[in-house]
């Protein structure tokens, strides 16, 4: 099976999403981190609860897929999802993953207590968005073009007032949609440089191994097979845009025969439809791993 596994970041979480997670794994993670996971909407307002929760869900799904004999050929994480992606290729070990993600969440939580966040513009090209951003951005009121999730969908990251100005300009200039997102941190922008540096220090003792598959890197949109760019992605992707659209473009060149979308949520429908047409897809937020395994095996046998 030449499968592309995709791991979303924050946004699709919901209360009780950890219900199906292997109990031993959950206990292990809670003991490891000294953290009780609440799995409630209220708890998910907290960065640590949220990030560790999402990664626990993804790791549990990966382990179940492994147990069913399934492995990815290509992996793509989006933002937080990079940790699960590196784990799925055997590059990052489980305990290292959870310790790092907890640290990442703590660093992000403390970085910008108020007045900063993200937005999104749909219907303009990246170069058009960059021009608008350049008109607003200043050292005092920073705003940056951030994640590229589809060809005509560019995120903004920075100070909320500056984002509001770019959003207004985008509407005047023909954007189909432009709005602020409910994200309390200016992720994936140079404003996260300090957080990245501290995260890199926290990861200095972590040993990554050579991935057994192709890793699609957020910060460059490139397909990589070496440890160094994966480490860069895990520690520093917060200070760069996620070039998700480019990642999917490259993934297509590897001609995957199926896509597995890990939970939570299902945020990439648009770009996946553009890049892959009607390629077989599994959505693990809607289906159990055993159903997924049944379908993937059936498709591999060629009985459609």
């Amino acid at each position, binding site marked *: 099976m030449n499968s592309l596994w995709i791991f979303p970041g924050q946004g699709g979480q919901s209360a009780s999403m950890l219900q199906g997670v292997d109990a031993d794994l959950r206990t292990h993670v809670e003991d490891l981190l000294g953290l009780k996971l609440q799995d409630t909407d209220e708890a998910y307002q907290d960065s640590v609860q949220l990030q560790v929760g999402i990664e626990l869900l993804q790791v549990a799904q990966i382990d179940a897929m492994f147990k069913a004999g399934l492995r990815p050929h290509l992996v793509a994480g989006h933002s937080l999802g990079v940790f699960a992606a590196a784990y799925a290729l055997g590059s990052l070990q489980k305990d290292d993953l959870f310790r790092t993600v907890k640290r990442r969440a703590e660093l992000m939580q403390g970085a910008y207590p108020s007045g900063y966040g993200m937005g999104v513009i749909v219907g303009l090209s990246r170069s058009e968005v960059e021009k608008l951003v350049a008109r607003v951005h200043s050292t005092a009121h920073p705003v940056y073009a951030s994640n590229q999730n589809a060809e005509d969908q560019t995120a903004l990251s920075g100070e909320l007032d500056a984002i509001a100005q770019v959003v207004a300009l985008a509407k005047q200039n023909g954007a189909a949609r432009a709005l602020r997102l409910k994200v309390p941190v200016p992720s994936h922008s140079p404003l996260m440089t300090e957080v990245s540096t501290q995260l890199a220090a926290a990861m200095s003792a972590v040993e990554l191994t050579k991935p057994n598959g192709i890793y699609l890197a957020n910060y460059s*949109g490139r397909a990589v*097979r070496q440890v160094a760019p994966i480490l860069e992605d895990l520690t520093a992707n917060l200070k760069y845009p996620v070039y998700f659209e480019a990642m999917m473009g490259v993934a297509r060149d590897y001609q995957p025969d199926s896509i597995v979308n890990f939970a939570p949520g299902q945020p990439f429908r648009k770009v996946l439809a*553009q890049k892959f047409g009607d390629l077989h897809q599994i959505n693990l937020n809607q289906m159990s791993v055993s159903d997924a395994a049944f379908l993937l095996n059936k498709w591999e046998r060629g009985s459609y």
Partner: protein
Amino acid sequence: MSEERNWATHREAKARKLAAISSLLDGKIAQTKDAKTLLEGLIAPGDKVVLEGDNQKQASFLSKTLAAVDPEKINNLHMIMSSISRPEHLDIFEDGIASKMDFSFAGPQSTRVSQMIADGTLKVGDIHTYLELYARLYVDLIPNVVLVAADKVDHEGNLYTGNNTEETPVIVEAAAFHDGIVIVQANEIVDKVPRVDIPSDWVDVVIPADEPYQLEPLFTRDPQNINELQILMGMMAIRGIYEKHNVQSVNHGVGFNTAAIELLLPTYGEQLGLKGKIVPNWEVNPTPTLIPAIESGWVKSIHSFGGEVGMEKYIAARPDVFFVGPDGSMRSNRAFGQMAGQYALDMFVGSTLQIDQYGNSSTVTNGRLSGFGGAPNMGSNPTGRRHSTPAWQSLRPDNDPLGKGQKLVVQMVETFGSNKRPVFVDSLDAVKVREEAKLANVPIMIYSEDTTHIVTEEGIAYLYKTDSMAERQAAIEAIAGVTPVGLRSNPDTVKDLRARGIVAFPEDIGVNRNQATRSLLAAQNMEDLVKWSKGLYNPPAKFRSWS
């Protein structure tokens, strides 16, 4: 007196390399497990290496083996490849095994190619058409080593390449007669090959592959996916171009537009009484959608660039039409096919992703450097042509005593592509890609000056009849629908262009839009094609919806 010069340095170097690995060979036949050792022994750093791969057939065992060699031993290769198709074709650049690439087509790897050029991981010599690249193998890109694929090889080293002979001969010949080393992967070693496609004395080493070479059914189009706009456009093309110009010989590109035409000949063409009058002779791959036209007697001959998976038995049973050896399998040849396509055909009909306001077209779009296949050879007017045919002559300008005819080059596009973006644009993405990739030329697939007709769902623009660029632009605008280019069209100008026969709408050429329904296709689906073929066509699994 100076010392006598050694005129056989290449030959001696080759002999030394072959001697060093001779213990691994039985005659010319090696063992699968020694493949990596053999490549490490026979390829030197900096060598010019041809790795066989086009848009259909891939020397996939040798490309995987090359990607696994030790970059300490083999590095900085100059690769020469018709098509960059497989991920490992680019992995060798990331790992330093190769550094420079001369190629034609990169469609399946076009995003990575763009990125690696931007990163400096891949240095591009140049982007070529197929014919140019083959030609340079004999001039300034003479290979040190060629890696090719064969179906069957006998114990002497004679190669059978059968239906998929494609470009193997042109690659092997360039090395074999200039002391290059010819390494072949074989699907199977046999006592006797069905026929000799390449004689053993052109071959140095044969390695049995771990699995058959990769082969793509690239020219198979399921009739089920042909829509009614494409049928309308096909009807317009048959009336307004094939019939009007009395076209006798043609190449069709890969696409549903041309598949529609193939399936309309036995129905719509028959109704128009055109059978026996148009397109008896074809240079085209054995595309399954031609089966109904062949079976109903429209097609007299087909020469092919390559084979097509599943068509083998059908071809073998129709030797009057196809080029078939005494063994019963087709012989294809991409180099001769390209030559025929350029010099012997009345018409090329293709499609593209973008056409600019002047009529230049390209398949290169932002972030994707797809290169060219055969379309620029097919889709150009060979000014070296001297023989005349009625279609060629029909494009001759009447105001020039030394005037001559012109090849018909037809682009068929729907005004909006499958991605919902306009096909007609003010400026091609290729212009920007040229800057990003630092190319000498903008990667245009077919130039405006060579494009004689454009067909859209709106109508036909007869560009060859225009006598100024302004008029050419107006003709394009008239058929460009509601794209930004089309919205500039002026109703009075369009009326004038229609009156002068420079633009034709369906009603101008007697095409009834209401007739453009799927029921007009000679085959509705793959199963119908199998029936037409009397059970001889055997579609690949992915095209089977029944069992």
